[in-house]
């Protein structure tokens, strides 16, 4: 005999539906909440999604992982792109960041979002926001 599972609340079901989506278009996306919904669903990173013409809002620092592309995006309002960039002290693990892998951001605008990742990624972003380039993990 198996135990009966507790039905999901409406809020939890909405969160799971959000996690299951693969495309977002012309929407405002609150990155910390999207990350929490993924964690609640047992996924520790946001992956395999396409965001088109979206506003991606923080406060958050995105860990740009493998297969993530930025195409014609506005990465943030600053005169110094380095204000958006963070270099991990450890090369093993990062806490507090929102991991993003195999995602495509097309014509998106980032608001209060910082970025971290590999040395190569950070160097490329610092030298001029890269576009259409895949990130290494």
């Amino acid at each position: 005999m198996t135990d009966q599972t507790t039905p999901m609340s409406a809020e939890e079901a909405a969160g799971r539906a959000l996690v299951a989506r693969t495309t977002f278009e012309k929407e405002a996306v609150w990155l910390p909440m999207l990350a929490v919904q993924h964690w609640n669903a047992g996924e520790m990173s946001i992956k395999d999604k396409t965001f088109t013409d979206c506003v991606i809002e923080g406060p958050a620092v995105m860990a740009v992982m493998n297969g993530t592309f930025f195409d014609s995006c506005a990465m943030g309002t600053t005169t110094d792109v380095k204000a958006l960039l963070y270099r991990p002290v450890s090369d093993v693990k990062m806490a507090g960041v929102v991991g993003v892998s195999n995602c495509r951001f097309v014509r998106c605008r980032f608001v209060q979002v910082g970025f971290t990742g590999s040395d190569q990624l950070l160097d490329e972003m610092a030298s001029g926001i890269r576009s259409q380039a895949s990130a290494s993990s």
Partner: protein
Amino acid sequence: MSRLPITREIRIASDLRATAFEDVDLNLFDLHVDNNGPGLGVIVGRTFRGCRLQGPAIMLVSMGVRFNDCNFGDPDGDMRNLVLRAEGKRALGTIPFRDTLFDGCEFLNVGFTGPSEILDQLLLVSGTAPKT
């Protein structure tokens, strides 16, 4: 190091604009938005005692922030896993704090950034030497 009991019930903070918080749970990004609106300001002059503070968030530790008997989260054996160094003079995307006391608090899914001298102190918490 803080040892909030694992059996402690979740108590969501009801007033995120309060100056003192005790024995409550808070999402740092909710605190930031409720106090400043997205994209603005610094959280200043607060006291947190026995609280659980959750991310995902990178806390910008600025002047006058003190940690007393706190659990910074799971460093996986190395405090460097909790620390990011800002590349620029400003730090967008973080949640900035100033003149704030954290006493007996726990952090979950929170990373830390700030001036090098502050980060170097944080890195000494577990005895790890600052990475140059």
